[in-house]
């Protein structure tokens, strides 16, 4: 296993932790929801880590792509009359192809990271307007109930609330994305990504097809984002354009990735645990100040904390001569977060 998946044991540990996490709070729909959202934003952040962290392509239309995934899944399931389980892969591939096209065009025309961010921000706004405007398909800003994937049957058979089943579905996708990420980064793709990031020109000169690798990263990110978006709507059991706005998805996913640490394997999940913990505390004590605090967080993170929690924790431990082996700071943070 560890040949195929370096650090597989650690991932299994994290997986086990999240398998057990709902048990103490099974009765509380609220906490199961918090856990689900944690994993969903970790998913968004994994996609962002691949495309931005490893490929310098700042996708600022994660909300839009997530919405494409969610709406397309519902529309296909509804109009073709198939199960949402069959519709989701199609929707994910469509979103993947959008990601691929953006990456392909950007790489072909050697767009800088700034240019890609502005291009995708504009696409995000187009998608947001389209979700509201295409009333016939999306129900406009009032939306429609989103209860696909026939999970309530499973929930009844297992004798647990539907929200718990949704949580485990999300967990399965999260673990799959983690396996994909770890495999990807340790494969020839990861080596190519690293070479391109260090020096695009040099990478090209030794025969690395920059456009191809960047497009692949865009495709994978698009697929993951679409799945996360669909599950985000399923978790909310109701779909509206407001779920998929720039502020609701992209800003949070960015904060999650930077808090956890960019290009860190466990950065997305560590960041998501911390951000959702902050979110839960704010929801209880200062709901009105949620947006303001996330804005301040974004500023402070980028000015002072760009290496993220995992790297900072490792530095902290090394300073005190506590050697726990690489990356234990990450698992420690997951532990405390998972219990809460």
């Amino acid at each position, binding site marked *: 296993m560890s040949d195929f998946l370096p650090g597989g044991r650690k991932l299994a540990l994290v997986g086990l932790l999240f398998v057990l996490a709902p048990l103490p709070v099974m009765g509380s729909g609220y906490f199961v929801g918090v856990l689900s959202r944690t994993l969903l934003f970790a998913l968004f952040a994994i996609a962002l880590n691949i495309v931005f962290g490893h490929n310098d392509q700042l996708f600022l239309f994660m909300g839009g792509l997530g919405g494409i995934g969610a709406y397309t899944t519902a529309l296909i399931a509804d109009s073709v009359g198939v199960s949402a389980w069959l519709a989701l892969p199609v929707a994910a591939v469509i979103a993947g192809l959008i990601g691929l096209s953006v990456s392909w*065009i950007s790489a072909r025309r050697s767009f800088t990271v*700034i240019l890609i961010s502005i291009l995708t*921000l504009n*696409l995000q706004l187009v998608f947001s*307007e389209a979700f509201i*405007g295409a009333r016939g398909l999306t129900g406009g800003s009032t939306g429609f109930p989103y209860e696909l994937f026939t999970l309530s049957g499973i929930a009844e058979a297992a004798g647990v609330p539907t929200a718990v089943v949704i949580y485990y579905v999300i967990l399965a996708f999260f673990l799959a994305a983690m396996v994909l990420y770890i495999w990807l980064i340790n494969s020839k793709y990861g080596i190519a990504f690293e070479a391109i990031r260090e020096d695009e020109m040099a990478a090209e000169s030794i025969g690395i097809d920059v456009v191809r690798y960047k497009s692949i990263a865009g495709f994978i990110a698009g697929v993951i984002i679409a799945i996360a978006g669909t599950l985000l709507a399923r978790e909310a059991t109701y779909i509206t354009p407001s779920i998929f706005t720039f502020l609701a998805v992209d800003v949070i996913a960015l904060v999650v990735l930077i808090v956890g640490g960019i290009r860190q394997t466990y950065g997305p999940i560590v960041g998501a645990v911390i951000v959702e913990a902050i979110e839960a505390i704010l929801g209880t004590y200062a709901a009105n*100040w949620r*947006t*303001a605090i996330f804005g301040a967080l974004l*500023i402070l993170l980028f000015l002072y904390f760009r290496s993220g929690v995992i790297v900072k924790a490792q530095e902290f431990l090394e300073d005190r001569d506590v050697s726990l082996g690489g990356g234990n700071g990450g698992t420690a943070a997951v532990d405390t977060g998972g219990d809460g």
Partner: protein
Amino acid sequence: MVTISTLAALAVDGLAFGASLALLGVGITLVYGLGEVLNLAIGAFAVIAAILASLLIDQGMSLPVAIAGGLAFVGVFGLVVDRTLLSLVYRSDGEERILIGIFTTLGLTVLLEGVMVNYVSSQYSLPLGLDPIRVGAAVVTGTSVASIVIAAVVLAVLFLFLNRTFLGKATRTIFQDERGARLVGINPRKIRTLVFVLSVLVAGLAGVLAAARSNVSVATSFEFTTFALIVSIVGGVRSLVGAVVAGLLLGLINTMANFFVGSYFATIILFGAAIVFLLFRPEVMSS
């Protein structure tokens, strides 16, 4: 059937909207051209000026005093932001500075929106109380005409400042060659502060003019920012004349599209235009 007079009225309204867009675009262009900080909080400054002016009127102040008060506040606030936040951004260089600039101003706009929602959560407007103006068969709103005139005067003054005064010439020198400017004894940081304050004042005016024609709310601020971005993409992020032309053009197109095909489609046309420009003329955002 659309009559000529309707078209004329639409054109004037479109130009009035375009005037606000041009001001916002100029605000982005000034700061980006000078310090490579893409000010994604520009819409927040616009909204703050408009809302504050509206609140001052509620306190019994006259319209000009209230507008001056709103703009003055935004100017001082801009100065504070420049001396604190932007000073930190300017510590880095090149692509890193652009990226940090994007994230800090994005954070700032989220922060400001989040703070404002708690205090000023309704819709605000600044009715100028002007009568409609009759031009031949067409009737155009006085507010639209006033918007165009005010924006034109302010832009003219701004261009005169940049072209005729020493400070303005120093500014343009940094635009063209930062190192050269430093060699002849111009301090770029001071000029950047001046220009940032100027840019938020221009944006504040755009917000005030927008509030004169329709409602403005906290949620409008991100909309303004995106409009400003589109204008600078289409006009070229370093060209002031480009920003003005693009602003007017997009204002006209948006207003016409709004009338003929509906507002959602009009917005999509606006963003679509920006995407097309980015794809075919990406050099507008670099170089």
